[in-house]
């Protein structure tokens, strides 16, 4: 079994849709999450608040520097993710297809480094 990060990216400039509009998406994601759990593939998942609430810490120099915003300027930022277990990439890609349809966003699949 390998672990994969399934991440969903949001456009920086696009406003969050209204809760009303998002309701069917939330429900579809809930159903998908339950399916992942039932299959025993679930490790962890979560949605993130908008990137405007991010804070970056850099302690690679003499003293830590704390600054407002993401670490790199980008048009897109991480909006949420799943960590799943799968036998191989094909299985992970199948979960990603279902996840992408449920959350209505592109899903990036990346394997975690082996032990």
């Amino acid at each position, binding site marked *: 079994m*390998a672990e994969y990060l399934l991440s969903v990216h949001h456009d920086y400039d696009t406003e969050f849709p209204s809760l009303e509009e998002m309701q069917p998406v939330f429900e579809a994601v809930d159903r998908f999450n339950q399916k992942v759990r039932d299959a025993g593939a679930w490790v962890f998942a979560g949605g993130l608040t908008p990137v405007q609430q991010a804070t970056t810490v850099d302690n690679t120099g003499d003293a830590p520097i704390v600054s407002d915003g993401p670490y790199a300027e980008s048009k897109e930022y991480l909006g949420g993710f799943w960590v799943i277990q*799968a036998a*191989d990439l094909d299985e992970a890609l199948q979960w990603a297809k279902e996840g992408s349809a449920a959350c209505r966003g592109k899903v990036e699949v990346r394997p975690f480094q082996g032990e």
Partner: protein
Amino acid sequence: MSGDVERIFRDEFGRVVASLTRRFGDLDVAEEAAGEALLAALERWPVDGVPPNPGGWLTTTAVRRAIDRIRREQQRDAKHQAALMIHDDTPHEPTGAVDDDRLRLLFTCCHPALAPEARVALTLRLLGGLTVAEIAAAFLVPETTMAQRITRAKAKIKGAHIPYRVPSAADLADRLAAVLTVVYLVFNEGYLASAGDAPIRAELTDEAIRLGRVLRTLLPDEAEIAGLLALMLLIDARRPSRVAGGELVPLPEQDRGGWDRALIAEGHALVRECLDRARRTGRPPGRYQLLAAVNAVHTDAPTWADTDWSQIAALYDQLAAVDPGPVVALNRAVAVAELDGPAVGLAAVDRLGLTAYHAWHATRADLLRRLGRSGEARAAYDAAIAATDNPAERAFLARRRGQLAG
């Protein structure tokens, strides 16, 4: 002698790599051991003679080399111990599980999670046994670039756990389409090299046909495989007449007596098989089967003028339903020009506006020439020449431009 070794090796390389990949679970181990087995064959065979089962000899030798390597590395890396434990002495079989391995390897090399150019390179390297230098030369990129492309793809196969198996029935059609795309791309790059000094790269067309034959043996019931193989055979049959004096000879002017009749017969038999199957199953023929049928009509005609153009136009209509791209429409317009005259054909071509595509300019140029519109034809030849780097095609277009009146 070394030519013999090379031919046998090229035929057997994919089998050796595929079987070692299954046994050791590692593409790099399999590839290196197969390479070492070739070196051993080049040393031994000229002295001892070619063994009765050269494929078995290569596999056995490669397995020994791989085990030696793993033993050496074992002190550093205990993980390979497991691989060593599953080693067995099953003799090499020309059919059965070993061939399934080759199919697994092909699906792994053509996995949609790999970049298309990496799929082509990996397939030629691991199944075709071409060296990195040969692949780099065929695609006109520096060897270091090609080496990096292949290394990255193999690292992704390992790191992302791209499986080593034939896809499930539900995914087979999609995944097979990706495999066929790779094979056809290799063939096309060989048949009309997009750049470089050689107009035809036989090492690529031959390799694509070889892979087509392997696929056909492994999956004999897949109609699109038969279609693609027929298509490649029927195009390749025309190779002897396709270039003369360094110049591309277009189909209407080719010496049909120079066509390879054996390849044509084989291609026609496959097309008939596809038609029978489509009739029997009620499943409409796919893209490759239709393209093969078009080429069967061409190779059936004694001359360009005697070609059954209404049949060709009808096949392109069917093709447009499966593959509604502008290139199909362009080819249909060529058939229409033969059926209804160059003016009708030109109107259809102009509607497509494929200004970046050399064949669009070349088709326009030819139709304008036939309509006596020399000035416009000249401009179209100029545009076609500017849009291709193939030397034989440029030579042909330049000669045609030179023949225009005024």
